[in-house]
């Protein structure tokens, strides 16, 4: 066991053991352990196999960023083993393994590396046949690629979303972030501080720092009620106007901040040398995290590679943890010894200056580090910590518009943000000393506070006390390779160099050709080295090369947390419960649920036929509540409709109802309905269900320009509609208690009345889609159920039957009435529909007028006609079947159905303009390819003189 005694292990609770399995073997850890720390504590260092060569991989950073430590959970692929807590009974397995982690059949790939140079898949796998890639090679590649396995039976999880608003959002609760948040909150601002770790403190919790610093900051923080701390919460992106997703496990806080302070720290970078990927080689900060957070001893015998003070502190930490430090290797030239060096030497550690790690070697199968090569000789060790430098965590700043640069004098990557509401503090701003970081937090807070209008004293900007050039490891390709630049993608130095030789010299091309930086860590540990390698290979500076664009998210995020709790928009009419009680087959039409027919599915055809028959011979009732209902009021109401619709409305008498047809500017038909003039300055207008939202918006839009004196109300939800239709409709209405005279003379076809029916205020229009005597009753939706009940009761003696959408479609087809969107498309003109009668020739203007005139001059190519199939025809083409002329498609069937009234199939179809005359025969191609000839007939198949609707 590699477990250290307290106080090491700040995150674990030794009183609560937790058992779990990895690769089928039982392991025990403590509550608070991550999967990786618990496994490390038990000596299990190999966590995965690498992407291409299937080399054993283990802990690199302990930040959860790399593919190295991604593991498979039962319902979650690619879980970050370094961050995911263990839980009782959790079953964890390794990823990207053919066989088992221990015995991976694909480990042989490591020997065949020379056969698989960078981009090899572009040069081969093309033959021998044209489809060899699809049939043979790709399936192999697909199986080999990919990491985790998705559990297609994963149980449903609940995710939710909240909104947060604050004056200042501080991202990162390390010393700089804590200092910034405290300063801002002490000045009275409303502050949110978030950090991805389970505790505040950042590097203060695992680095070698005076514990008083953190406790001092923590106590100030606790005294501030206006400072909300969200630990275990990652700020995973920056979007326009400071809109930031804060992800707290399964919850997404959509956050709006007036000012943002990014104190996201720095990312420690690995060193590049042969076999630098062996388990047992880790970043210095990873070793420190294992020791302080989890009480795990990262090895027994260590070599420390240190090119900065952090490396020296790591060596001291290792000694404290009982690790034997064989040697500290400092690649910098010998110079004056600092206090850390003196302290280490005092503890008997050998320090070698001006040398670096040349290579490493592993135990059998490269399962763990065995020895390293330094200055020409081998040193045995089971741990190598690497502290050679850092890169500022550029992801969030760059998303917020920051530019990455390279300071040649300090040899450091820099980030600059233009003046605005986003500020940097701490290591991300290039400030690494502890007190400097705290001061830079104060400075960022003061800047933000001033922008918010707080009267605060200006804080001086921080200039680091000592500006020393950073050490830069020279990157030279190892002759034998396996010197990894990108661990996720198994890319070595030569791979990047070879890409430049093939002409992929721009950093984005290098990325795309080699896939560098495209893996789970998104270049965190490879971007800087890649820039240096490409700069060297192409004779340019690192600044010229740059890094690839940083895109959100910062770290991987689940689709579940983004999707949240998903409710599909559904609308029900006020009569929904009535339909359900009548056993209607309800189906969604757009957002609305509508009855298709009433009765069992087994007798659907029968039900539809009976419903049609009821309307034609008796009386039927249809819920038309989904129709768009608009009210236009004001002195210019008539003029307004005149401009919007093709027919004349300004001269429409009060009490009359007129068809209305709407065109767009292009002259295409976009909607139809009826307009009932209720008063000189008031119209009640219907629109089709699917188009009303657009029609309403367009009306308002046009009038924003026209400035006519009208007001438009969308009453679609507020009003419901019932259509009573059939030869006996009048008898039903007359049986109802009403102040409206429903007689033919008092209430003729295409007129409207308002009054009371069965105690319900109604607007009644004599219109209908069925071609029968029809009254359409519109009333406030809250009263619709009682009106429905009254109509149903009054209709019972007359055999009234509610009917559904299916019957309605046939009824309208028998009359040749068009459905917008089904019988029309984006370029349909009124002429093509034969709707010349609905287009005013006298009005000086209406929307689309100019265009239909022009289009008429350009000539008509098609026409919507009726087609009537012979009774008993064997092959009836379906909707959308093509109408051919000399073998070429000239149109298609738009509606087709069996008319029980006519005893044959009828259809509406676009045919060539030359074939529009009644009696012409057109050729239609059936679904099965058979060609049938059909005669053209008039639109109104049933009751062609329209006598029935006017009785």
């Amino acid at each position, binding site marked *: 066991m590699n477990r250290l005694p307290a106080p090491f292990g700040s995150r674990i609770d030794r009183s609560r053991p937790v058992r779990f399995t990895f690769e089928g073997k039982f392991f025990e850890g403590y509550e608070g352990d991550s999967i990786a720390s618990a496994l490390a504590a038990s000596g299990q260092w190999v966590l995965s196999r690498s992407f291409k060569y299937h080399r054993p991989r283990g802990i690199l950073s302990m930040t959860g960023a790399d593919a190295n430590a991604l593991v498979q959970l039962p319902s979650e692929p690619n879980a970050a083993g370094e961050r995911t807590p263990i839980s009782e009974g959790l079953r964890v397995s390794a990823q990207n393994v053919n066989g088992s982690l221990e015995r991976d059949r694909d480990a042989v790939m490591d020997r065949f590396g020379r056969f698989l140079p960078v981009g090899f898949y572009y040069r081969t796998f093309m033959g021998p046949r044209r489809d060899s890639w699809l049939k043979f090679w790709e399936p192999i590649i697909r199986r080999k690629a990919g990491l985790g396995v998705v559990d*297609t039976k994963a149980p449903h999880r609940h995710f939710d979303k909240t909104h947060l608003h604050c004056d200042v959002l501080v991202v990162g609760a390390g010393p700089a972030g804590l200092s910034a948040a405290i300063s801002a909150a002490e000045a009275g601002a409303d502050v949110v501080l978030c950090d991805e770790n389970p505790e505040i403190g950042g590097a203060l919790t695992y680095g070698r720092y005076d514990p008083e610093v953190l406790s001092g900051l923590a106590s100030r923080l606790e005294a501030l009620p206006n400072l909300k701390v969200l630990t275990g919460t990652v700020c995973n992106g920056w979007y326009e106007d400071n809109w930031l997703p804060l992800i707290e496990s399964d919850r997404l806080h959509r956050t709006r901040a007036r000012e943002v302070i990014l104190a996201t720290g720095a990312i420690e970078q690995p060193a590049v040398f042969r076999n630098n990927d062996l388990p047992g080689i880790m970043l210095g900060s990873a070793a420190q995290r294992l020791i302080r957070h989890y009480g795990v001893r990262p090895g027994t015998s260590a070599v420390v590679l240190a090119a900065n003070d952090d490396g020296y502190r790591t060596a001291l930490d290792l000694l404290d943890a009982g690790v034997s430090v064989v040697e500290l290797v400092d690649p910098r030239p010998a110079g004056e010894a600092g206090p850390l060096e003196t302290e280490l030497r005092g503890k008997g550690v050998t320090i070698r200056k001006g040398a670096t790690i040349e290579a490493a070697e592993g135990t059998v199968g490269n399962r763990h580090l065995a020895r390293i090569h330094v200055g020409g000789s081998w040193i045995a060790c089971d741990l190598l910590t690497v502290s050679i430098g850092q890169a500022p965590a550029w992801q969030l700043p760059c998303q917020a518009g920051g530019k990455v640069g390279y300071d040649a004098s300090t040899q450091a990557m820099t980030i600059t943000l233009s003046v605005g509401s986003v500020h940097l503090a701490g290591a991300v701003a290039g400030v690494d000393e502890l007190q400097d970081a705290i001061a830079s937090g104060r400075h960022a807070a003061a800047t933000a506070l001033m922008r918010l209008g707080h009267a605060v004293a200006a804080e001086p900007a921080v200039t680091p006390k000592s500006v020393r050039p950073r050490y830069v490891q020279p990157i030279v390709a190892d002759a034998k390779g396996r010197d990894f630049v990108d661990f996720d993608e198994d890319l070595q130095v030569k791979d990047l160099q070879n890409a430049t030789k093939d002409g992929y010299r721009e950093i984005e091309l290098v990325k795309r050709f080699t896939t560098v930086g495209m893996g789970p860590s998104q270049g965190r540990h490879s971007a800087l080295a890649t820039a240096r390698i490409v700069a060297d290979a192409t004779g340019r500076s690192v600044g010229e090369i740059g890094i690839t664009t940083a895109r959100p998210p910062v770290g991987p995020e689940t*689709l579940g947390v983004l999707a949240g709790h998903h409710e599909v928009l559904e609308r029900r009419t006020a009569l929904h419960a009535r339909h359900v009680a009548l056993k209607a087959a309800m189906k969604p039409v757009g957002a609305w649920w509508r009855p298709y027919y009433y009765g069992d599915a087994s007798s659907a055809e029968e039900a539809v036929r009976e419903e049609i028959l009821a309307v034609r011979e008796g009386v039927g009732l249809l819920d038309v509540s989904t129709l768009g209902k608009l009210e236009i009021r004001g002195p210019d109401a008539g003029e307004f409709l005149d401009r919007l619709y093709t027919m004349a409305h300004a001269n429409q008498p009060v009490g009359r109802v007129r068809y209305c047809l709407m065109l767009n500017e292009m002259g295409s038909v976009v909607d139809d309905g009826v307009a009932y003039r209720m008063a000189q300055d008031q119209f009640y207008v219907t629109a089709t269900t699917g188009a009303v939202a657009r029609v309403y918006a367009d009306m308002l839009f046009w009038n924003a320009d026209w400035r006519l004196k009208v007001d438009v109300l969308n009453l679609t939800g507020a009003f419901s509609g019932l259509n009573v239709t059939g030869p006996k409709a009048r008898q039903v209405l007359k049986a109802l208690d009403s102040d409206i005279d429903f007689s033919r003379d008092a209430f003729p076809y295409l007129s409207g009345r308002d009054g009371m029916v069965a105690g319900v205020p109604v607007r009644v229009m004599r219109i209908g889609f069925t071609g029968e005597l029809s009254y359409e009753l519109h009333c406030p939706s809250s009263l619709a159920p009682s009106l429905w009940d009254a109509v149903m009761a009054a209709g019972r003696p007359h055999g009234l039957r509610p009917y559904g959408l299916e019957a309605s479609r046939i009824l309208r087809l028998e009359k040749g009435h068009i459905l917008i969107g089904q019988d029309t498309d984006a370029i349909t003109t009124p002429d093509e529909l034969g709707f010349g009668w609905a287009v005013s020739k006298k009005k000086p203007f209406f929307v689309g007028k100019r265009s239909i005139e022009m289009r008429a001059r350009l000539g008509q190519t098609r026409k919507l006609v009726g087609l009537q199939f012979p009774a008993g025809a064997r092959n009836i083409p379906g909707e959308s079947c093509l109408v051919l002329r000399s073998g070429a498609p000239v149109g298609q069937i738009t509606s087709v159905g069996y008319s029980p009234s006519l005893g044959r199939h009828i259809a509406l179809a676009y045919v060539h303009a030359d074939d529009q005359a009644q009696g012409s025969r057109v050729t239609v191609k059936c679904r099965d390819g058979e060609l049938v000839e059909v005669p053209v007939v008039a639109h109104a198949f049933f009751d062609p003189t329209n006598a029935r609707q006017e009785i």
Partner: protein
Amino acid sequence: MPLRLLKYGLSRDYPVSGDIPATPELKPAYDVVIIGGGGHGLSCAHHLAKYHGIRSVAVLEKGYLAGGNTARNTTTIRSNYITAEGIAFYKEGVELFERLSQELDFNVMFSQRGQLTLAHTEATMRSFHMRAEMGKHLGTRTEVVDQKGVEELCPLLNMDYGGPLEILGGLWHADGGTARHDAVAWGYAAQASRRGVEIHQRTEVQGFEVVGDRVQAVKTNRGRVACGQVLIATGGMNYDVALMAGVELPIRCYPLQAMVTQPLKPWLDTLVSSVSLHTYLVQSSRGEVVIGGGSDPYQLYSTRSTLDMKEHLAKGAVHLFPFLQGVRLLRQWAGITDMTPDYSPIMGASPLANLWLDCGWGTWGFKATPVAGKRMAQTIAEGRVPDILKPFALERFETFRLLNEMGATAASH
């Protein structure tokens, strides 16, 4: 093991292919100047050099090679459109993709695993029938499948039986597939440059010298270049570039966003898209699931990403495949699309005699990379527009001869 890999393994040094030569000096004049070093421009250059013997060709790219929409699109290749003209054109495009790896000696990984588009409404089913009837008539593999057919093709889909988004059926397009977008551009670049075409990266066109009805020369940040013929193929910048030549195109630019998950072992074979949810998914050879959808709701020349679009796409993806809740997203990005009023491209002549257009590719351009390049090369070489391109002329907007593909483009691109 394929022979080529043996060759690599047995050679001492990395066998350099030199796909993309370093940018040479700009010459004072070329027979053909192609503006835009994306897939379309490079494809045209390849076809000019290989099939028409025109090798005095300069491809001018303001950034890095194929760094615009070629690099950003989600690589759908299909021909299941609505109009006869569109289907005929895209069908030729699919056929060229079927032999593209061999043509370029570069594996573009054309993976013809088929595309399944889902209908949640009867209106969508009707439009599918329209596309299927037209597609079958013109010889493509496009058919409507019922619920059972959808379940057989993609058994993991949430059919939502009885729910508001019940899948009523699908449009199955066996010809549909994807390819490795970058490889297409690089393959064309390598072939074209081997035949003498010059590729000039970081070379931005800043203006045109127009005399009468001809472009005399183009002005770049690296100097003036006289030209015999000029092609504009600049993706999201088409409006802007054409305007410099005084040609105003009926184009509006909108960002189109997409995103990708971490790599997973294969679970999704076909391309799946939903018209109602404005979401589509495809799993790449690498195992990543690429998710995309509709364009942004307002005009913009920016490739910034939004959280709103990501949330919307995640909702759609999780609705179709609920088990994706725990799958992690790795990256999101955007491209700038040049949208035309009828969702069809503008190809062919411009008001200037020697200026040719390969524009208006909106969200649907990648699939046409081989065919647009081939046909535009033919146009430039012969000086006249071939029949297959004539319907796509800019003049169609004057005569209302629109090629409306909106319904076949909304969720699938």
